[in-house]
């Protein structure tokens, strides 16, 4: 009797452990797998490449979505914010304005997308899903109209363009500037979401909007802030993107949307209540980036990468939630 009871407890807590750390376990397993499968995977050069090219921009978009998803909403228009920032900064630089003006203009464009979302959601009471879906459609068409059907805009070399490109190419103490930007933003969003009054309100709205309203929280105002912040963060990615490729390619921002949502939800497995968190999202982004890179190195083509990622997301979520339910 007592032996079997002990056995049970052990099983339950093992399941609980697996459920709680499924992301970390998957992470470790994948790193080991690719290290064995590909000799180049674990080299510093490759990891550096993954960090700069696959992690930073996705992670910044995902930070924004982490805030929105924490509030119980969604932003399908993050790609539009990325594109608008990218488009405006490149257009301004091409027109001869300085880098500072360009960056300010780019962020301003993303801000407008965020304000538009906020108005649709809080003033017109449209659900975040539909409001941001509408903005996504409008944003895509706007770009096609502004670029004669989707022609990229390239920055030719010039003082401002070089200055702008330097964002992507310089480093401080050996750390590339985009990575420094990411670190600053991760710390800032972490403090905002998990330490500030605003973050607490956001979590309350996500957990139970009725309770937030009955507690005297200005739900509409906080929700506006949430959407503006998300768009601004996506705008930062748009600027880094343009700085890296020295151009604006219409509709390129959408590539971030699904990965960022996936990363955020992978991150929710860290929490018992499936709440998004900055650390979780960061782990999710790293996981996705490593899988993409690893599959590429072992020779899978792009389409199979998508299948691989899909299966991975599925396994991590199923392991975490399924085991957790069994543990209860």
């Amino acid at each position, binding site marked *: 009797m007592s032996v079997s009871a002990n056995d049970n407890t052990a099983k339950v807590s093992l399941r609980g452990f697996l459920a709680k750390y499924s992301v970390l376990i998957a992470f470790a397993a994948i790193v080991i797998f690719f290290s064995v499968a590909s000799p180049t995977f674990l080299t510093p050069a490759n990891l550096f490449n993954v960090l700069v090219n696959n992690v930073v921009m996705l992670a910044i978009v995902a930070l924004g979505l982490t805030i929105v998803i924490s509030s119980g909403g969604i932003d399908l228009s993050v790609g539009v914010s990325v594109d608008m920032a990218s488009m405006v900064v490149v257009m301004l630089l091409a027109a001869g304005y300085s880098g500072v003006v360009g960056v300010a203009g780019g962020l301003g464009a993303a801000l407008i997308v965020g304000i538009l979302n906020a108005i649709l959601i809080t003033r017109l009471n449209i659900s975040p899903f539909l409001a941001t879906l509408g903005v996504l459609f409008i944003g895509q068409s706007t770009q096609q109209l502004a670029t004669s059907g989707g022609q990229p805009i390239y920055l030719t070399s010039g003082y401002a363009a070089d200055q702008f490109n330097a964002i992507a190419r310089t480093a401080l103490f050996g750390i590339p500037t985009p990575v420094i930007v990411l670190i600053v933003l991760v710390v800032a969003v972490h*403090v905002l979401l998990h*330490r*500030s*009054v*605003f973050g*607490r*309100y956001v*979590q*309350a709205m996500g*957990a*139970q909007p*009725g*309770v*937030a*309203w*009955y*507690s*005297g*929280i*200005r739900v509409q105002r906080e929700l506006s802030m949430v959407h503006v912040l998300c768009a601004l963060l996506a705008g930062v990615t748009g600027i880094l993107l343009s700085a890296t490729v020295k151009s604006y390619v219409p509709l390129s921002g959408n590539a971030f949307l699904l990965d960022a949502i996936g990363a955020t939800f992978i991150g929710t497995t860290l929490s*018992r*209540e499936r*709440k998004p968190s900055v650390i979780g999202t960061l782990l999710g982004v790293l996981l996705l980036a490593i899988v993409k890179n690893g599959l590429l190195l072992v020779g899978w083509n792009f389409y199979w990468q998508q299948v691989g990622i899909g299966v991975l997301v599925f396994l991590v979520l199923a392991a975490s939630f399924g085991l957790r339910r069994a543990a209860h």
Partner: protein
Amino acid sequence: MQTAKRDVAVSMTGISKRFGPVRALENANLEIVRGSILGLVGQNGAGKSTIIKVLAGIIKPDSGSIVINGETVSALTPASVEKLGVHFIHQDRLLVPTATVGEAVFLGHEIGLGPFVSRRAMERRAADLLKRFFGMELPAGTLVKDLTTAQQKVVQITRALAQKASVLVLDEPTAALVKREVDSLFEVLRRLRDDGIAVVFISHYMQEIEKLCDRVTVMRNGTDVGTVDPRQTPIDEIIAMMIARDVGEMFPKRSVAQGAPVLEVSNLRLGGSFENIGFNVRAGEIVGLTGLLGSGAKEIVQCLFGLKNADGGQVKVEGRELSLSTPVKAVRDGIAMLPEDRRAHGVALGLSVRENISLASLRRYSKSGLVSRGSENQAVDGLIKELSIKTPHRDALVRELSGGNQQKVAIAKWLSCQSRVYVLDEPTVAVDVGAKVEIYNLLNRLAGEGAAILLLSSDLLELVGVCDRVLVVYRGRLAGSFSGPAMNSDALLAASSGARSNIDGVAA
């Protein structure tokens, strides 16, 4: 005595049902007779709705037998009961709003050929039925949402008749109706009775029972305490049958010195709900507010917290006039609200005890926008101890707490805010008896510390036990103010069902 002669449609005997430790029905009996209207009355929790749900096949009884049309039935389901000709007009289950009258009448029994539904045939037949039964000229293509509540009730009844109902059970059918509509509904029900249909009419309004019913069965504490003829039994006697006298030590004694008025309401008015509402609550005073569903009592409370905006009138807290346009303003102005739906509005189940308690007062525990965990933890721990909230840890999820402790967390949230006025909306619903007593003690302590408390409740014993004074709302107006020996459940029940009023007392 004359049961054999009567044409009994449904006979339920010895029905018992427990929900965990709670005895919902104990050896309850109900006899429904053809060609007669039976009233079913009792206080909240007396077992009226449980016994009806047993008959409807929604709840399975632990023991007892049910005979319908002379046949003993077991294992009733909602579908099998309808087949036996027993139909229910539930209080809240309405019709599909976007259906036409024809579609609504034949919902679940559509007319047509194979998988194809003929809307026109249904609308024609529905119009025929409405005219035949009720002499009503209602275009059957009208959408349900465009009908009045009374017309919707008639459509529901027509649906039952279209399926050859022999027993019709109506749960509080008049709650949302105006006087004229009530009269025409009664006409309909009388005509059905004369056609030999058995009607069961559940209502809190004693005058309606007196006017309409041929017999009335009174329920109390899960059993039927008697069946009488309402035309020969005075209302007061029926009310006395409904009320249990043994209150016990549920309500702790207290004595608090009352100070100046803290909450002053005057001439408050909300179109369609209530008008000319005025009262004061003093520091240290617990004032009860009660009224039947649809009386406007609930809306008064909602206006005081900015959930609804009154059309006129004045609300003052400590002499300062408030705008009360939103809960945001109400909270800033020192009004605390304990909502009836705890899970939707009171506590966030997925957040921790700490996060819930500090939610309305985070600014107190923060510096330049950042929460200072030290001072938050200190305050939260203090409140957990003060209210003896049973939680393993301040960071435990509220979901893991019992109902009573969740309610204490909801109260702690406002204590942390140091609110001046507490508005409580049915605070002891779905809370076990032990926790109820603790909540009553808590109210007493709040009052002792000088808070003004307004308690909306439909539990008359609770009101009498806890309050210094009880205001009764009947059809949108204050129908009475009771205190001292005049404040007893008989008087409150009589006033809230319109049988008696005490308007003079309102000024007190």
